[in-house]
């Protein structure tokens, strides 16, 4: 079909994402492709994507402190922010999924054997949709740090896993939100796999006193930036 004009999502700068082969994070060694990636020009399948939302969200899904019979143990926090693309446009009505450890650093998962208490009132799973301006909010518990076996005395900094779809296959992103000034950053190869220090800081939330809830919850702001699109391919090149 001649004259098929598509939006085009800009390539990310080379250091924006971590290298798949990051030897400090040992598990990458057998799980990264060794052949060079083949360039895939964006076509209809890549510039579209699942627009999930209605039907995937239940009322308490964004509030991880209200999903069980009683309140979970730990420090209540509000995590909020905006999802925008790299051109600054908000990404509305997009599904966000989060999962995290409980206050003692243990996941509600059968294969997590770290001997910290399981909290029967905390699944650590949340979902929500962004609003028309790309805003979202979760209420949860501050996750604890936990040890793992990557290197000598290895500890993961406290973090919340975030999954985002955007509106196109090319925008799909899974990342982790960290907390400001965590003393464990310096020894964590997953956090430090992002080589550009500025890009690394984009995974760190900021304390947001204005959004705290007095005598109830602290607040952290975490904005997320997905790849941006030029409106039409003809704006990009080919002139």
């Amino acid at each position, binding site marked *: 079909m*001649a004259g*098929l004009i*598509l939006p085009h*999502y800009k*390539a*990310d*700068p080379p250091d924006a*994402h*971590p*290298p*798949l082969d990051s030897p400090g*994070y040992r*598990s*990458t*060694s057998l*799980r990264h*492709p060794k052949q060079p*990636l*083949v*360039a*895939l*020009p964006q*076509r*209809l*399948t890549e*510039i*579209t*994507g*699942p627009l*999930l939302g209605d039907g*995937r969200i239940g009322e308490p899904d964004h509030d991880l402190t209200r999903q069980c019979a009683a309140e979970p143990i730990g420090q209540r926090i509000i995590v909020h922010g905006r999802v*925008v*693309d*790299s*051109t600054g446009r908000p990404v509305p009505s997009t599904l966000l*999924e989060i*999962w995290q450890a409980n206050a003692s650093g243990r*996941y509600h*998962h059968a*294969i*997590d054997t770290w001997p910290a208490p399981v909290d029967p009132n905390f699944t*650590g*799973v949340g979902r929500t949709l962004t609003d028309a301006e790309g805003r979202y909010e979760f209420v949860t518990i501050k996750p604890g740090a936990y040890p793992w076996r990557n290197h000598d005395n290895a500890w993961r900094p406290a973090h919340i*896993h975030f*999954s985002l779809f955007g*509106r196109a*296959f090319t925008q*799909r*992103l*899974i*990342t982790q939100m960290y907390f400001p000034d965590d003393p464990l950053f310096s020894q964590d190869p*997953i956090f430090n796999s*992002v080589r550009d220090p*500025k*890009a*690394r800081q*984009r*995974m760190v939330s900021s304390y947001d006193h204005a959004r705290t809830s007095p005598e109830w919850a602290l607040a952290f702001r975490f904005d997320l*930036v*997905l790849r941006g699109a030029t409106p039409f391919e003809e704006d990009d090149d080919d002139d």
Partner: protein
Amino acid sequence: MTELGVTPSQTVGPFLHLGLEWADGPYVVPPSTAGALRIGGFVFDGRGEPVPDAMVETWQADPDGRFDHPDDPRGAAKSSVSGFRGFGRSATDRLGRWWILTVKPGLLPAPEGAVEAPHLDISVFGRGMLNRVVTRLYFPDELAANAADPVLASVEEGRRSSLVAAEGEDGLRFDIWLQGEHETVFFAV
């Protein structure tokens, strides 16, 4: 125009099932759909061991080659297949297996006037993977369309077969090799 820096990708970690596993995840179409096709396989690491903590996501057009999406320049089109979601998600099980239930997508127009063969876009996430890897699945009974497909043509001939599913006992088989002798072709999108 000021360009904002994108948020970096990070691994889903070993506990991805908590947040990402959906009971209906593998159902791109409802289970009762006439002519529904099962597609599945293993995810293997560089030692040839199955990967039990990975997740496979698929995205595709409907059998008419349409997307219910506003950015499709032909217009968003509701699928003729009732309940068609276009999207599939399957965590690998303890044996490293993933699967989806879907219908074969149609041909797609491409900007150069070319025609794309029926295909699925696939993302693979996992512990030990700091970013997803992206591949495509093509269908083994589409020899002529595959031969004319511009994306397959851009791949070194000797490696193209890693992108074509195989006929299996209960549907199509598509194994994903993250590394090693049989490494799947992965794309930069």
